[in-house]
């Protein structure tokens, strides 16, 4: 292999050679620079591949031909190789990116860039602390130089502030090195030897060295200077500054810390404070580069925390730290380079990216990498990190990391929302080709790093799972017309169902039918759209892929991976709605919060055993079981939008597109229910200080059912009404699931099926009406029964089925409910359920009355029936409901047998005619027949009396002798249930919404208040750096100076 010292030799040699090239021949100078950077990258790449292939050992390179303590030695291990590759590659790409800036400033700037990259690789490789100091000084001066490349006049001031703080840091470092040398007798890091945690003599010396290295890493209170550089420097340089120099400085700190593990807690403390602090402050930023500055400071803080835990992480330390570092470096470099493409600096101006879908995809990839979503390295790293920390019972640290990651996800996805939804400033010249090329290369690097980390990880590689690949294939198929893609999607879903059919147990079978076959039926409605419909099919198929894998997940990893994939897919799907931006943001915030709770729960349950079987949830240690239960339950309840975690649902489902709403509402909510099912299946009767946790779930279910319904009554927007009704129905399902008896579970399953059918049907019907009337507000509609008979029929059948009126399957649910509560030991919540039953009937009647009955508005007179393709799935659902009402046993019999494995007693006998339970008998066919006969006979009686009734026009009504002229005044729909509002309005006060708004406001207030800390004055920054050292010294020495 080529000796790594050549990286430094080539870098320097080329820098000096540039001196020979005369001033005006810039092309040659630039070519030389690129060649040198390419050579350095190739050497690093050679070593990295050698280490990856395993045929290379960690090599120590001696300089001056003498052994280490007497001369400087460099080391090239796997970590060093990877980092040098990262640094050199970032340098190379940045050089290409900054081509015109380098041309403008001539060969000197190129020399400075070359020396900067050489110095960074030097920091990574050197094993001598004074040599480290020299390279750090080189970086300080090179940064001072490269900051000048920026067009922004303010960069000059930022550079000066940086130099001032760098002086303070170098003083500390030099003193520290001197006294460490005096104490240890050698300047080589390996000889420094373990220094005990103490603040006198060698301890104090090492403290000074460490604090200087930490200051170099821009710790939270003392990093104003770094943020000014991020904001004003050339984006090409900011990419190097954040990805390369951040990583190099971090590795330097890691090397020094490795010698004396006693000091690791100091790193953890500083790291976690920086991670949380910087993330909170980033909330109030609206300058894109300054936001990226805060985010990269936060990520470096997270990495410092991981370095601080290196003794606990042991041999998977490289994998975790590497994963987070690679994700941070690639994403940050990519985002900085993209900021160069966008003309203006406000977050909302990134909307210009919509001109090029590939850039939007790149932006999404980078955001997903930073937040640590599958299939990128950050995901695997975060998974292993949480597990190991939990096993080492450092739950508080996991909690802090997850909270920080959630805040970061918050402001990143808000930014992504701005990019996709806000209108782009006009007069945009367009993107420069070579900069886009760089961003595209980074995108590829991101996905390959995802693949690599997937392979390296002990858990299965997310990118190797067939459903995910099928979803990603749709990225390639984007140019095809929508209808063909729709066909492929349906074929894919049904094919996967048929392929996996034998592997399903009855419970999984029911969910599989709903997700796969149900998904295919809803996709029929998507035939309604012409054109290519960019950005619809990949997220949709990603969601279905996540759902399909969720129900088959054996290990906790596949469960969690599929959970996050379906969250990601559904977020992009919901974001497509016209006004869905704020709601999509609250959706992703709640979902990720829930997902992180699940991650913490799995980590606590696994307690170090990888891979952790889902079935093993049953035998979790008693001490941890209640907390695992609570965490997982909260995580799953964010998905079923139980009360308290529900405020994202109405907006997300209402503002989504017509065919997305049924998908998200009918199918996606079932994921949360499936999770709860698995949880209760394994950890049913967990006690928490003597109280059975399932009691809480019963109560939450009942309250959600009641309040969900109550809120639905007062909605004016049809889709919001249906969304709130989903909350109520999910509350019902949670209630019956938590009853923990045979019939309870059977009822929950019937709910899963019923809710999917009629919620999708109603959403499609309302969607069809919206397609024609272009409004969702019910009081603006009315009298559409004559124009849209099919939609009316489907809504009517939906109402009858949902409200439990006898002939249809809803009554079957009520009958099983009655039998279930007979044996349940919980009495009080049942009262809420009794009341929420009829309330369900109320809001549905409001839906059908305000839209279809009453007065027809003038502008709707010439409307046609809902689009054909929206009606087809509705009619399929109507037939299914009728069939299911008459023959419920078809599906339920097998499931009933399966449930009796959990709850043997209290089952049902399925005779040919009817169903016999312990308390009663229900013969659906007989009831249907009797009611049918009575109905027909009465109808015939009326026909006999009144066969020649004459159809009258609209306003021919006995209206106190007057003839009303305007349909608006005579259609009673606005504030339909006024008496209810007067009587029970107080129950619907937005308590939960105000609570969550208060939480976000507090965060934003602290951010706004805290960021004033950075006054912009260079001297203040130096003072803060000094203060940082002094405070650490005081805390460290226990306050005894």
């Amino acid at each position: 292999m080529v000796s790594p010292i050549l990286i430094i030799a080539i870098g320097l040699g080329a820098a000096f050679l540039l001196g020979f090239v005369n001033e005006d021949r810039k092309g040659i100078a630039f070519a030389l620079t690129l060649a040198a950077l390419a050579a350095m990258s190739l050497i690093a790449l050679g070593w990295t591949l050698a280490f990856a292939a395993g045929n290379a050992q960690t090599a120590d390179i001696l300089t001056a031909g003498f052994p280490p303590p007497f001369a400087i030695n460099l080391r090239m291990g796997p970590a060093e190789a990877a980092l040098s590759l990262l640094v050199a590659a970032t340098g190379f790409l940045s050089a290409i990116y900054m081509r015109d800036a380098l041309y403008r400033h001539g060969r000197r700037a190129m020399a400075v860039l070359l020396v900067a990259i050489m110095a960074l690789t030097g920091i990574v490789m050197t094993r001598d602390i004074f040599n480290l100091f020299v390279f750090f000084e080189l970086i300080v001066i090179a940064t001072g130089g490269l900051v000048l490349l920026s067009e922004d006049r303010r960069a000059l001031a930022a550079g000066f502030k940086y130099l001032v703080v760098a002086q303070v840091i170098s003083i500390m470092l030099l003193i520290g090195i001197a006294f460490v040398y005096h104490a240890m007798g050698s300047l080589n890091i390996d000889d420094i030897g373990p220094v005990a945690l103490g603040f006198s003599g060698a301890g104090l010396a090492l403290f000074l060295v460490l604090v200087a290295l930490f200051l170099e890493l821009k710790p939270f209170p003392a990093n104003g200077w770094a943020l000014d550089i991020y904001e004003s420097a050339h984006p090409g340089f900011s990419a190097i500054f954040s990805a390369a120099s951040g990583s190099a400085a971090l590795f330097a700190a890691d090397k020094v810390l490795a010698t004396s593990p006693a000091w690791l807690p100091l790193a953890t403390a500083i790291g976690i404070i920086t991670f949380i602090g910087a993330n909170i402050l980033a909330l109030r930023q609206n300058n894109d580069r300054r936001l990226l500055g805060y985010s990269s400071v936060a990520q470096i803080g997270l990495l410092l925390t991981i370095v601080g835990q290196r003794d606990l992480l042991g041999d998977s330390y490289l994998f975790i730290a590497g994963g987070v570092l690679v994700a941070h470096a690639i994403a940050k470099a990519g985002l900085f380079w993209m900021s160069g493409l966008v003309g203006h600096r406000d977050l909302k101006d990134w909307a210009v990216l919509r001109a090029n879908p590939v850039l939007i995809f790149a932006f999404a990839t980078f955001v997903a990498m930073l937040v640590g979503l599958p299939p990128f390295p950050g995901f695997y790293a975060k998974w292993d990190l949480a597990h190991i920390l939990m096993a080492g019972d450092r739950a508080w640290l996991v909690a802090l990391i997850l909270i920080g990651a959630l805040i970061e996800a918050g402001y990143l996805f808000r930014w992504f929302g701005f990019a996709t939804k806000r209108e782009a400033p006009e007069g945009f010249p367009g993107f420069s080709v070579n900069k886009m090329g760089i961003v595209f290369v980074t995108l590829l690097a991101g996905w390959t790093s995802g693949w690599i980390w997937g392979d390296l990880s002990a858990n299965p590689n997310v990118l190797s799972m067939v459903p995910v690949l099928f979803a990603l294939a749709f990225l390639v198929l984007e140019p095809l017309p929508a209808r063909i893609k729709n066909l492929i999607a349906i074929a894919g879903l049904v094919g996967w169902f048929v392929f996996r059919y034998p592997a399903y147990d009855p419970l999984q079978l029911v969910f599989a039918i709903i997700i796969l076959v149900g998904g295919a039926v809803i996709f029929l409605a998507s035939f309604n759209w012409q054109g290519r419909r960019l950005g619809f099919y990949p997220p949709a198929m990603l969601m279905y892929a996540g759902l399909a894998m969720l129900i088959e997940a054996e290990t906790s990893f596949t469960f969690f991976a599929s959970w996050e994939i379906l969250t990601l897919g559904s977020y992009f799907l919901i974001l497509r709605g016209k006004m869905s931006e704020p709601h999509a943001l609250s959706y992703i915030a709640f979902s990720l919060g829930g997902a992180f709770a699940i991650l913490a729960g799995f980590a606590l349950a696994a307690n170090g055993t990888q891979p952790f079987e889902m079935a093993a949830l049953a035998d979790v240690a008693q001490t941890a079981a209640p907390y695992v239960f609570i965490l997982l339950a909260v995580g799953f309840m964010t998905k079923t939008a139980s009360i308290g975690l529900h405020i994202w649902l109405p907006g997300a489902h209402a503002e989504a597109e017509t065919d997305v709403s049924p998908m998200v509402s009918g199918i996606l909510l079932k994921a949360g229910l499936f999770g709860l099912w698995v949880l209760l299946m394994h950890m049913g009767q967990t006690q928490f200080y003597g109280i059975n946790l399932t009691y809480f779930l019963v109560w939450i279910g009942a309250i959600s059912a009641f309040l969900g319904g109550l809120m639905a009554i007062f909605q004016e927007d049809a889709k919001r009404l249906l969304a709130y009704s989903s909350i109520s129905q999910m509350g019902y399902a949670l209630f019956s699931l938590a009853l923990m008896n045979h019939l309870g579970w059977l009822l929950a399953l019937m709910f899963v099926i019923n809710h999917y059918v009629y919620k999708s049907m109603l959403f499609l019907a309302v969607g069809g009406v919206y397609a024609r009337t272009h409004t969702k507000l019910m009081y603006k509609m009315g009298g559409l029964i004559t124009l849209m008979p099919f939609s009316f029929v489907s809504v009517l059948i939906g109402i009858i089925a949902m409200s439990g009126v006898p002939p249809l399957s809803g009554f079957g649910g009520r009958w099983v409910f009655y039998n279930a509560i007979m044996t349940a030991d919980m009495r009080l919540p049942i009262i809420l359920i009794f009341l929420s039953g009829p309330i369900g009937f109320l809001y549905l009647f409001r839906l059908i009355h305000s839209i279809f009955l009453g007065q027809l508005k003038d502008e709707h007179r010439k409307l046609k029936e809902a689009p054909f393709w929206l009606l087809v799935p509705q009619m399929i659902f109507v037939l299914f409901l009728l069939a299911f009402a008459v023959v419920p046993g078809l599906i339920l019999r097998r499931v009933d047998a399966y449930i009796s494995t959990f709850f043997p007693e209290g089952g049902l006998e399925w005779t040919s005619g009817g169903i016999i339970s312990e308390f009663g008998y229900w013969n659906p066919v007989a009831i249907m027949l009797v009611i049918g006969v009575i109905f027909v006979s009465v109808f015939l009686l009326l026909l006999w009396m009144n066969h020649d009734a004459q159809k009258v026009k609209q306003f021919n009504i006995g209206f106190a002798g007057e003839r009303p002229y305007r349909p608006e005044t005579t259609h009673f729909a606005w504030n339909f249930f006024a008496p209810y509002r007067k009587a029970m309005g107080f129950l619907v006060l937005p308590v939960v919404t105000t609570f969550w708004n208060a939480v976000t406001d507090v965060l934003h207030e602290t951010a706004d208040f805290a960021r004033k800390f950075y006054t912009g004055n260079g001297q203040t920054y130096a003072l803060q750096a000094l203060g940082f050292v002094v405070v650490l010294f005081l805390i460290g020495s226990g306050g005894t100076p």
Partner: protein
Amino acid sequence: MVRAFVTLVFVAILGLAFGRLALDYVPDAALNQTAVHYAELTPPETGAQNVVAAIIVTYRGLDTLGEVTVLFLTAAIVALVLAQTSGPTKGRGSGLLPSGELLQTGTRMLTPLILLFGIYVFVNGHLTPGGGFQGGAILASAALLLLLADPVRRFSHRLLSWVESGSGVFYVLIGVFGLFLAGGFLDNRILPLGDFGSIFSAGAIPLIYALIGLKVGAEFSSILESLEEAEDH
């Protein structure tokens, strides 16, 4: 006022930290293991009399290479910074009094002497105290004298950058030769160690020190040059 008080408090506490460092400091009775190695093995291994020069050039050669690069960077960036700021153009060296007869003849007489002394310093840096940096500084002071005496004079840019780059590249080449010919990068045994104490001894150390001297001298002069020219354009 509050800032001054806060700074005072911080500096006081830092003083305490340094105080504790100073109190705990006990001068060693004997040299530590690294120093002993250098004391005993410098002559056989490098053949240089001046141990500090040996450490600077061979043992910790990478540091010195880094350091020379620091100067190279400073020269380049100072030129960049000043090139960016277009100042008031009031002609070259205007406003300064023409230097008197005495000054010019004195300069003409002194400059060669200073140059000679500078070269002497860095040529036998490995024998007597002094070396590349000191020699370079002296050369620069010669250039400085010329500039002060005759502000309008301009050194040819070509010469300065050629000397600077040439010595830099040659220095790196020596390092690379060390890698292939001798033990490692920047090893001075690529040339015979010669007999102890003479000018042409200690392998490549004098050569490297000479190069450093030239490079440092050229860099300082170019820093002064760019400062001088700042007002031209």
